[in-house]
Protein backbone atom coordinates (compact mmCIF):
# COMPACT_ATOMS: atom_id res chain seq x y z
CA UNK A 1 0.00 0.00 0.00
CA UNK A 2 2.79 2.40 0.91
CA UNK A 3 5.50 0.41 -0.85
CA UNK A 4 7.22 -0.40 2.45
CA UNK A 5 7.29 -4.17 2.03
CA UNK A 6 8.94 -4.20 -1.47
CA UNK A 7 11.61 -1.82 -0.12
CA UNK A 8 12.14 -4.10 2.90
CA UNK A 9 12.34 -7.10 0.56
CA UNK A 10 15.00 -5.38 -1.57
CA UNK A 11 16.96 -4.38 1.53
CA UNK A 12 16.93 -7.91 2.97
CA UNK A 13 17.77 -9.58 -0.36
CA UNK A 14 20.71 -7.22 -0.87
CA UNK A 15 22.53 -8.82 2.11
CA UNK A 16 25.33 -10.97 0.73
CA UNK A 17 25.38 -13.74 3.31
CA UNK A 18 22.05 -15.30 2.23
CA UNK A 19 22.50 -18.58 0.29
CA UNK A 20 20.91 -18.71 -3.15
CA UNK A 21 17.92 -20.83 -2.05
CA UNK A 22 17.07 -18.31 0.69
CA UNK A 23 17.17 -15.44 -1.80
CA UNK A 24 14.89 -17.42 -4.14
CA UNK A 25 12.52 -18.02 -1.21
CA UNK A 26 12.50 -14.32 -0.26
CA UNK A 27 11.86 -13.25 -3.87
CA UNK A 28 9.20 -15.86 -4.67
CA UNK A 29 5.63 -14.75 -5.37
CA UNK A 30 4.40 -16.69 -2.30
CA UNK A 31 7.35 -15.83 -0.11
CA UNK A 32 7.45 -14.18 3.34
CA UNK A 33 7.21 -10.70 1.80
CA UNK A 34 3.79 -11.47 0.34
CA UNK A 35 0.41 -11.93 2.01
CA UNK A 36 0.08 -15.48 0.58
CA UNK A 37 2.71 -16.72 3.02
CA UNK A 38 1.10 -15.32 6.16
CA UNK A 39 -2.58 -16.12 5.62
CA UNK A 40 -2.24 -19.91 6.15
CA UNK A 41 -0.23 -19.17 9.31
CA UNK A 42 -3.12 -17.03 10.56
CA UNK A 43 -5.47 -19.97 10.06
CA UNK A 44 -3.08 -22.23 11.97
CA UNK A 45 -3.15 -19.57 14.71
CA UNK A 46 -6.85 -20.28 15.25
CA UNK A 47 -6.10 -23.99 15.83
CA UNK A 48 -3.19 -23.15 18.14
CA UNK A 49 -5.30 -20.67 20.14
CA UNK A 50 -7.99 -23.34 20.48
CA UNK A 51 -5.46 -25.91 21.70
CA UNK A 52 -4.24 -23.35 24.24
CA UNK A 53 -7.83 -22.76 25.35
CA UNK A 54 -8.30 -26.48 26.09
CA UNK A 55 -6.68 -26.02 29.49
CA UNK A 56 -9.20 -23.30 30.43
CA UNK A 57 -12.45 -24.16 32.20
CA UNK A 58 -15.35 -24.97 29.87
CA UNK A 59 -17.34 -21.97 31.14
CA UNK A 60 -14.92 -19.76 29.24
CA UNK A 61 -15.42 -21.62 25.97
CA UNK A 62 -17.77 -19.81 23.59
CA UNK A 63 -20.16 -22.42 22.17
CA UNK A 64 -21.26 -20.38 19.16
CA UNK A 65 -17.69 -19.41 18.29
CA UNK A 66 -16.58 -23.04 18.42
CA UNK A 67 -19.55 -24.10 16.28
CA UNK A 68 -18.53 -21.51 13.68
CA UNK A 69 -14.87 -22.61 13.82
CA UNK A 70 -15.80 -26.29 13.46
CA UNK A 71 -18.33 -25.73 10.68
CA UNK A 72 -16.05 -23.33 8.74
CA UNK A 73 -13.14 -25.75 9.12
CA UNK A 74 -15.14 -28.71 7.81
CA UNK A 75 -16.60 -26.80 4.88
CA UNK A 76 -13.26 -25.32 3.89
CA UNK A 77 -11.64 -28.76 4.11
CA UNK A 78 -14.13 -29.90 1.46
CA UNK A 79 -13.67 -26.63 -0.52
CA UNK A 80 -9.89 -27.08 -0.61
CA UNK A 81 -10.38 -30.46 -2.30
CA UNK A 82 -12.55 -29.09 -5.09
CA UNK A 83 -10.62 -25.94 -6.02
CA UNK A 84 -7.72 -25.78 -8.42
CA UNK A 85 -4.92 -26.00 -7.48
CA UNK A 86 -5.50 -28.41 -4.64
CA UNK A 87 -3.37 -27.27 -1.67
CA UNK A 88 -3.02 -30.10 0.84
CA UNK A 89 -1.45 -27.87 3.49
CA UNK A 90 -4.67 -25.82 3.53
CA UNK A 91 -6.71 -29.05 3.75
CA UNK A 92 -4.75 -30.12 6.84
CA UNK A 93 -4.96 -26.61 8.33
CA UNK A 94 -8.75 -26.40 7.96
CA UNK A 95 -9.19 -30.00 9.15
CA UNK A 96 -7.19 -29.30 12.32
CA UNK A 97 -9.21 -26.13 12.90
CA UNK A 98 -12.44 -28.15 12.66
CA UNK A 99 -11.10 -30.86 14.98
CA UNK A 100 -10.10 -28.38 17.69
CA UNK A 101 -13.53 -26.73 17.46
CA UNK A 102 -15.31 -30.09 17.69
CA UNK A 103 -13.19 -31.13 20.67
CA UNK A 104 -14.04 -27.92 22.53
CA UNK A 105 -17.74 -28.56 21.86
CA UNK A 106 -17.28 -32.14 23.12
CA UNK A 107 -15.69 -30.81 26.33
CA UNK A 108 -18.71 -28.58 26.88
CA UNK A 109 -21.11 -31.43 26.11
CA UNK A 110 -19.33 -33.74 28.59
CA UNK A 111 -20.03 -31.26 31.38
CA UNK A 112 -23.56 -30.61 30.20
CA UNK A 113 -22.81 -26.96 29.36
CA UNK A 114 -23.16 -27.10 25.61
CA UNK A 115 -26.12 -24.71 25.52
CA UNK A 116 -24.93 -22.29 28.20
CA UNK A 117 -23.30 -19.06 27.03
Amino acid at each position, binding site marked *: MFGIVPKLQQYVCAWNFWPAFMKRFFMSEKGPF*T*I*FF*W*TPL*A*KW*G*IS*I*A*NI*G*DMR*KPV*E*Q*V*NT*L*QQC*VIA*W*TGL*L*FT*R*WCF*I*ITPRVYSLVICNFCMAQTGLYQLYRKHQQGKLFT*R
Partner: protein
Amino acid sequence: MASKVSGMFWTWVHSSTGPKTTHFWAPVCNWFFPIQALYDWNRDPAKISKEMQCVLVCYSSLFMRWALRISPQSYILFCMHLFNATLQGRLLIRRLTWESSQQKAIEDKPTN
Protein backbone atom coordinates in the same frame (compact mmCIF):
# COMPACT_ATOMS: atom_id res chain seq x y z
CA MET B 1 -39.00 -9.70 -17.73
CA ALA B 2 -40.12 -11.88 -14.82
CA SER B 3 -39.43 -15.07 -16.77
CA LYS B 4 -35.97 -13.74 -17.75
CA VAL B 5 -35.12 -13.03 -14.11
CA SER B 6 -36.54 -16.41 -13.10
CA GLY B 7 -34.43 -18.07 -15.81
CA MET B 8 -31.29 -16.30 -14.61
CA PHE B 9 -32.06 -17.31 -11.03
CA TRP B 10 -32.48 -21.01 -11.85
CA THR B 11 -29.38 -20.94 -14.08
CA TRP B 12 -27.44 -19.64 -11.11
CA VAL B 13 -28.99 -22.23 -8.76
CA HIS B 14 -27.87 -25.06 -11.03
CA SER B 15 -24.47 -23.53 -11.93
CA SER B 16 -21.11 -24.94 -10.86
CA THR B 17 -20.66 -22.18 -8.28
CA GLY B 18 -24.29 -21.95 -7.16
CA PRO B 19 -25.98 -22.75 -3.85
CA LYS B 20 -25.90 -26.50 -4.55
CA THR B 21 -22.08 -26.48 -4.30
CA THR B 22 -19.42 -25.92 -1.67
CA HIS B 23 -18.05 -23.05 -3.80
CA PHE B 24 -21.05 -21.00 -2.64
CA TRP B 25 -21.44 -22.14 0.97
CA ALA B 26 -17.77 -21.96 2.00
CA PRO B 27 -17.54 -18.15 1.64
CA VAL B 28 -21.09 -17.75 3.03
CA CYS B 29 -20.21 -19.61 6.23
CA ASN B 30 -17.31 -17.21 6.72
CA TRP B 31 -19.99 -14.63 7.55
CA PHE B 32 -20.89 -16.63 10.66
CA PHE B 33 -17.75 -15.21 12.33
CA PRO B 34 -18.97 -11.57 12.42
CA ILE B 35 -22.54 -12.76 13.10
CA GLN B 36 -21.22 -14.66 16.13
CA ALA B 37 -19.39 -11.53 17.30
CA LEU B 38 -22.67 -9.54 16.99
CA TYR B 39 -24.55 -12.22 18.96
CA ASP B 40 -21.91 -11.97 21.70
CA TRP B 41 -22.16 -8.16 21.82
CA ASN B 42 -22.80 -8.18 25.58
CA ARG B 43 -20.89 -11.33 26.48
CA ASP B 44 -19.51 -11.44 30.03
CA PRO B 45 -15.87 -10.28 29.64
CA ALA B 46 -14.72 -13.00 32.06
CA LYS B 47 -15.83 -15.54 29.46
CA ILE B 48 -14.01 -13.97 26.50
CA SER B 49 -10.79 -15.69 25.43
CA LYS B 50 -8.13 -13.02 24.93
CA GLU B 51 -5.90 -15.29 22.83
CA MET B 52 -8.67 -16.39 20.51
CA GLN B 53 -9.84 -12.79 19.98
CA CYS B 54 -6.24 -11.66 19.18
CA VAL B 55 -5.91 -14.46 16.66
CA LEU B 56 -9.26 -13.67 15.03
CA VAL B 57 -8.37 -9.98 14.69
CA CYS B 58 -5.00 -10.87 13.08
CA TYR B 59 -6.66 -13.52 10.90
CA SER B 60 -9.23 -11.08 9.54
CA SER B 61 -6.69 -8.26 9.09
CA LEU B 62 -4.46 -10.52 6.99
CA PHE B 63 -7.37 -11.87 4.97
CA MET B 64 -8.59 -8.32 4.25
CA ARG B 65 -5.30 -7.76 2.44
CA TRP B 66 -5.49 -11.23 0.83
CA ALA B 67 -8.98 -10.56 -0.55
CA LEU B 68 -7.63 -7.55 -2.44
CA ARG B 69 -4.49 -9.32 -3.68
CA ILE B 70 -6.12 -12.41 -5.17
CA SER B 71 -7.32 -12.48 -8.71
CA PRO B 72 -10.20 -11.72 -9.08
CA GLN B 73 -10.44 -9.40 -6.08
CA SER B 74 -13.24 -10.25 -3.70
CA TYR B 75 -14.79 -7.14 -2.16
CA ILE B 76 -17.43 -9.22 -0.36
CA LEU B 77 -14.69 -11.22 1.38
CA PHE B 78 -12.89 -7.95 2.14
CA CYS B 79 -16.05 -6.51 3.75
CA MET B 80 -16.67 -9.66 5.72
CA HIS B 81 -13.16 -9.65 7.17
CA LEU B 82 -13.38 -5.90 7.84
CA PHE B 83 -16.56 -6.46 9.91
CA ASN B 84 -15.02 -9.46 11.62
CA ALA B 85 -11.79 -7.67 12.55
CA THR B 86 -13.79 -4.73 13.96
CA LEU B 87 -16.30 -6.82 15.92
CA GLN B 88 -13.80 -9.35 17.27
CA GLY B 89 -11.53 -6.41 18.13
CA ARG B 90 -14.39 -4.89 20.12
CA LEU B 91 -14.70 -8.12 22.13
CA LEU B 92 -10.94 -8.09 22.70
CA ILE B 93 -11.05 -4.50 23.95
CA ARG B 94 -13.99 -5.43 26.19
CA ARG B 95 -11.90 -8.20 27.75
CA LEU B 96 -8.77 -6.04 28.12
CA THR B 97 -10.78 -3.21 29.71
CA TRP B 98 -12.32 -5.68 32.16
CA GLU B 99 -8.90 -7.13 33.06
CA SER B 100 -7.55 -3.63 33.61
CA SER B 101 -10.48 -2.74 35.89
CA GLN B 102 -10.01 -6.01 37.84
CA GLN B 103 -6.33 -5.22 38.29
CA LYS B 104 -7.18 -1.68 39.44
CA ALA B 105 -9.77 -3.03 41.92
CA ILE B 106 -7.15 -5.36 43.42
CA GLU B 107 -4.61 -2.54 43.71
CA ASP B 108 -7.13 -0.10 45.23
CA LYS B 109 -8.41 -2.63 47.77
CA PRO B 110 -7.40 -1.39 51.22
CA THR B 111 -5.01 -3.81 52.90
CA ASN B 112 -5.86 -4.41 56.58
